[in-house]
């Protein structure tokens, strides 16, 4: 079971070259197959995830959650997706049509791109970039653009406020997010994901870098626009923020992209702080799924418990607390490494 996916990929390449294809072409086809697999997994996973969040929030609130369609209501999301697909696609007349229409696509494309570098098992990265972590952070920060496009293109004051909030919020939280990961990078000495996972074979980085983990967790929640930092959406204040004017599948694409981001960031958290795919007995790809889902449940619990933080508090929390703390963490890590090296480790 362990190498099921890796062996399948090898067999596919071997079969294609056996047909007389040049190795370069075979690799390209493999890449396309992997891409399609990622997209299918992402979409299937999200249908499960939305169901799970509704179920978990139901349990938190002493309700049952969806339970009408399929076993435990599991097909509810599919029914919702069908409903959204059949809805009328409304583009309000005063919008900036081009921007309005492309924003959801930009958002979903960016979020799917994040999966390229995540190791989904032993040797199961699509591309093992030598700047993997850097790639993840830089692509992740692009999603601000999509929200700004949605907010501006909708030509609605609520949407504009939502879009502007998302820009301010995501730019400020980008910094502590990157800084908190820097501590891990200093210990491993590499930005390559497989190196980071390999470095945790003895001890998880959550033990070595607890401060970095907490700052990463908080800023990741803010990056994902999840409660208590769901400023761009903020239902009770901005009606639906940047998504106010969207209907049907366009709106669903935003929703999809948000969850795609959520899974990606949780998977990265599992990779960087919780030993990635490493674990006993079970196959490696199962381990990363288990770890990711546990982290996702923590995200759910937090979202459904806390009230929303205020915008200016949010900004000052980032600039006055998280950034100094994550900088101090870098200093501490550097000093620790220096001391340990002198002691001859």
């Amino acid at each position: 079971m362990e190498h099921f996916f890796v062996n399948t990929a090898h067999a596919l390449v071997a079969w294609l070259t056996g047909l007389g294809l040049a190795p370069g072409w075979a690799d390209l086809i493999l890449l396309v197959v992997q891409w399609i697999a990622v997209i299918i997994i992402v979409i299937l996973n999200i249908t499960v995830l939305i169901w799970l969040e509704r179920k978990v929030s139901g349990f938190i609130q002493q309700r049952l959650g969806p339970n009408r369609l399929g076993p435990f209501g599991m097909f509810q999301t599919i029914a919702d997706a069908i409903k959204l697909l059949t809805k009328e696609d409304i583009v309000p007349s005063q919008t900036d049509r081009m921007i309005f229409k492309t924003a959801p696509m930009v958002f979903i494309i960016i979020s799917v791109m994040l999966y390229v570098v995540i190791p989904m098992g032993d040797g199961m990265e699509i591309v093992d970039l030598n700047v993997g972590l850097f790639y993840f952070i830089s692509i992740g920060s692009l999603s601000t653009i999509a929200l700004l496009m949605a907010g501006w293109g909708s030509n609605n004051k609520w949407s504009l406020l939502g879009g502007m909030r998302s820009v301010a919020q995501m730019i400020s939280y980008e910094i502590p997010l990157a800084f908190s990961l820097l501590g891990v990078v200093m210990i491993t000495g590499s930005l390559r994901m497989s190196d980071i996972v390999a470095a945790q074979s003895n001890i998880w980085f959550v033990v070595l870098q607890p401060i970095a983990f907490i700052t990463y967790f908080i800023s990741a929640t803010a990056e994902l626009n999840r409660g208590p930092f769901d400023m761009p959406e903020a239902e009770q204040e901005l009606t639906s923020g940047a998504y106010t004017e969207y209907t049907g599948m366009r709106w669903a694409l935003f929703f999809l992209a948000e969850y795609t981001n959520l899974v990606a960031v949780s998977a990265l958290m599992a990779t960087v702080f919780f030993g990635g795919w490493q674990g006993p007995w079970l196959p490696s790809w199962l381990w990363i799924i288990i770890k990711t889902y546990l982290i996702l449940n923590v995200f759910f619990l937090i979202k459904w418990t806390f009230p929303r933080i205020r915008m200016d508090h949010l900004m000052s929390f980032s600039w006055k607390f998280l950034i100094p703390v994550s900088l101090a963490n870098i200093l501490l890590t550097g000093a620790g490494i220096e001391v340990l090296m002198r002691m001859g480790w």
Partner: protein
Amino acid sequence: MYGTGLLKGLGITLKHTFEREITQQYPEQMPVLPARFRGNLQLDFQDCIACEMCTKVCPNGVLSLESVRDDKTNKKKLMSYSIDFQYCMYCNFCVENCPKHCLHFDHNFELAAYDRENIKKVYQRPQELVTDLPEEIVAAEEKNQKRISVMIGALQKDAPKILGKLLEDEEKGKVLAAALASDQDKLEKIAVMMVEDIEKAKKVAGALANKAAKDHPKEGNVVA
């Protein structure tokens, strides 16, 4: 310390996550209702003495009744009783003020209906009680019924002509007859109206004809 409040909050929600849910699965699991629950208003037709206490006390004009006076005993007899439930505020005044205790709320709360007509509830005097009435009223009622059945028969036979006469416009009569051909209920209603109140029948038939002409302009032309 800053943050302990947050952790306690998480503890509360986490605790409740693993508790039993408290919601009822409604259509499968019906709620247990207390004895005084106010659901659907019911009338015991036999006991009603048509004193009109309920209609007078009702704040919203939900209740209305028709009665006839029996000259021999000088007592009122209830002919029909209607409850227009869409305006009811469930204040219980009618039940409290009824001297014969013949009004009561039952425990049925599933009162949603697709159109307003179905919300209104009309009690007609039941057949076995009709004999109870003074003779001349019974006779008049029988005569009326006969006229109505004759009218329905005539309408079924030659609707365009009768309706054309009613509307004083043959074209319209034809359109309406075509529209009503498939709707026996409406046809019967118009027949009743024509017997009881010809002016009202004219109005209703006119409105229906206009609507039919609007809805199916082509069909109307074909008939014409």
